[in-house]
Every structure is written in structure tokens, then in C-alpha cells.
């Protein structure tokens, strides 16, 4: 996926979110640290440009301590920043790649430790279909791809923004 395609997809995701959540009074957007944050930053910036008067509740969630694979490897924790209550709000979790579903499982645990949202939705840029290990599906999906286990998906941001699928050797 090159930069132009990526831009179109990101804008479509933002518009889908707007369609379902405008005027955002009951909605919180939460990017999952570390790789979901550039995506959520982009989407939030875009929504803010379209609706400068809207007050968006936007936070970041670190899930390191909730992972189920700490026996295999430790990850560097990042900052959790939730300057609002998620109690009875509609929460949209945002991450770049959905693969096994385990990250999202951890994110839901981490989220529920901060309160009881009325609804949780999932917004994903790349959905690696048929590789789920848990029953988790995205509500908003940028692009669904078929890939095999030895392949990796990497999303680049900034000037050189693109999504690539490569063989992990």
C-alpha cells in the first residue's frame, strides 16, 4: 500500500468513525501504544480539522503489563495517558495491525481496569485475516489481507508512509 492509498484509507476510516460517533460527546478514542498511536494521531488530527469545534476525548493506552507472553519476552512499557473517565462512554480502540488478537485482548483488560465503558469498538488499519487465535473482529478495517505465518506486516509513517508485507527470514 503506497502513500496515496494509505491516505485514502485513513481518511475513509476517519469518516466511518465520524458517521457513527458525531458529535463525539459520548465517545473516547484510544490509541494502543506504541504502534497504534501514529494511526490514532492521524485520524484524530483529521477529525479535528473537519470539526474544529468538537471536543474529542483522545487517550493512549499501554498494555505491556497485561500481555500474556511475558514468559517469552518482555516489552518496553510506554506511557498510558487517559485524561478522562471512560465510564459509560463508547470507546474506540485504535491499532495498526490485527493479527492473533492477543494484543486487543490485553488492551480490553487494561481498558476495563480504568472503568466500565458502555461499548468498545475496534478500528484497525490492516487486518490479517484467518490468523486469529482469539474471537476478535474489527469494527472498522482499513484493508484486509491474506498472509501466512512467516510473513510480517509493517506500517511506516511520516514522509515515507506506506504499508508493506514481507517475508520474515
Amino acid at each position: 500500500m503506497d502513500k496515496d492509498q494509505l491516505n485514502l484509507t485513513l481518511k475513509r476510516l476517519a469518516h466511518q468513525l465520524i458517521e457513527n460517533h458525531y458529535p463525539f460527546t459520548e465517545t473516547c478514542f484510544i490509541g494502543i501504544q506504541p504502534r497504534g498511536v501514529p494511526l490514532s494521531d492521524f485520524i484524530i488530527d483529521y477529525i479535528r480539522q473537519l470539526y474544529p469545534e468538537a471536543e474529542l476525548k483522545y487517550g493512549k493506552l499501554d498494555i505491556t503489563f497485561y500481555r500474556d507472553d511475558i514468559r517469552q519476552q518482555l516489552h518496553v512499557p510506554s506511557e498510558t495517558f487517559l485524561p478522562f473517565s471512560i465510564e459509560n462512554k463508547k470507546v474506540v480502540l485504535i491499532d495498526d495491525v490485527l493479527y492473533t488478537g492477543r494484543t486487543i485482548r490485553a488492551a480490553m483488560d487494561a481498558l476495563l481496569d480504568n472503568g466500565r465503558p458502555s461499548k468498545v469498538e475496534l478500528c484497525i488499519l490492516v487486518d490479517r485475516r484467518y490468523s486469529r487465535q482469539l474471537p476478535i473482529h474489527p469494527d472498522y478495517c482499513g484493508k484486509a489481507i491474506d498472509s501466512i505465518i512467516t510473513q510480517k506486516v509493517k506500517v511506516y509513517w511520516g514522509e515515507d508512509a506506506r504499508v508493506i508485507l514481507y517475508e520474515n527470514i
Partner: protein
Amino acid sequence: MQLSTKHLLGIRDLSAQDIQIILDTATQFKDVLQRPIKKVPSLRDVTIVNLFYENSTRTRISFELAEKRLSADTINFSSSGSSVSKGETLLDTVNNILSMKVDMVVMRHSASGAPHFLAKHIPAVIVNAGDGINEHPTQALLDAFSIREKLGGLEGKKVAIIGDIMHSRVALSNIYLLKKMGAEVTVAGPPTLIPKHIQEAFDIRVEYNVRNALQWCDVANVLRIQLERQNQVLFSSLREYSLAFGISKHLLDSLDKEIFIMHPGPINRGVELDSDVADSRQSLILDQVENGVAVRMSVLYLLSGKRDNN
């Protein structure tokens, strides 16, 4: 991200990078402790035994709380009221506990080197919670965390360690840590309580006048006079010690700057530290205790990845 050691036996074995990782991770845990649910499931499958062969209030509660906040299962052992009084050896006690499938051991012991001995003989991860007059690594880490939080860093900061340097494991761990992180250290106290050659051994300054040390430093870490470890008379009386080396409000006010005061506890009020100093705005003593839980969570979390997977 990995620590270079399997156990936390002392600051001596850690690299500057290890210390950095522990302190950075502790920052995130401190954040967890401010949330409505102050608990994470990271160590759900880990069992930790707290072996306390010596009295402790803060360290013990702090470790236990840290373990519980990480969702680990904990068992507590104290030598009084156990089979130790029937003559069981340290190794036997620990091996018996480990055969019940325990993953990590947090140990305090009055003999220096006891945790190092255990680390050689048993497969579990060992965390030293103070051994004799050797080291008390988590205390040094939480002291560093508190200094970093107040002063924004450790490098180039001036720290005075005042009091019973000779018998203090806190002093030794602090000296190792501060030197590794690029801080400047002065030790101060009566000559009988400062080991010979400490100046050359650690490249630190030695000062026998407390006022000079206070005037020089950004932070003063005041230590308790450890009467239980002194088997000879090293100063004439507590009252005389307090007059010459105790820190009073009057003394602090006479400096031309404001410094922070730390103390690892328990405080002998009126001996090394006057009450009005211990309870003043300059005192970081309760911050230290608060940070202790986050730092210990960080240590346990980072070492839990070092368990043998079985």
C-alpha cells in the same frame, strides 16, 4: 529489553543501563499506582516467597504490596516462629519452600552474602532485600528514583550520605548506584563510623563536618545509627552524636540554599534527624516510601522474565 543479571543481589552487579531500565519501568508502575484499579496481571502465574530473617517494616510491606499489585501469589516467612529456631539451616529451609514450586525469593538476612550463597545453590530468582552490612539494592534504587523525580536526573547531582556509613548497607548500595549513574558523592559522619580507605575505593569525598557536607550537597541521605550492629563503643553517647552530627532545622536554615532530606527509615527522631526536619517540606521520606512500591514492582517484573521456563 533485558537486565544483564538473573538475580538482584546488589547494585554492584548491575550496569548503568540496567539501572536506567529499572528506573524507567518504575515510572510506568508509579503511573499504574495512581489509577483507580492499582493492579496489573503481569505476574499472575508467579509465586514469590518473602524470607525475612531480620526485622523489617517498610521493606517487607513494600515488597508484599508490590507483589500483590502485580498479581503474584505470595507467601511470607519470618524466622521467628519457624523451624529456624529448631536448628534448620538456611539452605534446607529454602529448598523445602522451593519444592512447593516457588519461582522467586525475596530475602533479608543479617549475614552479608546470604543471598549470594542462595543464588549459587538454588534455581529460583533471588532478590536481595538487605543482607547484613553489605547491600540493600532496592533501597538504593528507590532513593535514586526519588532523587531523579525531584531533581530531574542523577548525573552531576551532589548527594551527601550522612551517619553510620560503616554498618549501613543502604550507604554501600547508594554509593555504587550513584557513582554508576554519574552523581557526585560525599560521605559524612564521625571518623569511627566511616571505613578507612573508602575515599580511594569508591572515588568519593569524605567529610567529618556535617554542616560542610550539607552546604555542598543537593540531597542529603541521612542514615540511622545502627546500634544493633555495633559491638563496641564507636561514639560516646547518642546525645553527643546528635549534637555533633544530628540534623536540626536550625542547621538547615543556616545554609544559604535549600536541600532535600532523605532517610531510609526507621528514623531515630532526635538522634540523626530532628522531628521538625523529618516532617518538613524539604523531607522526601514519605515520597521514598511511596516510590518504593513502584521500584520493587519494576524489579520483580523485569526479573520475572529471567525465570527458567519449566
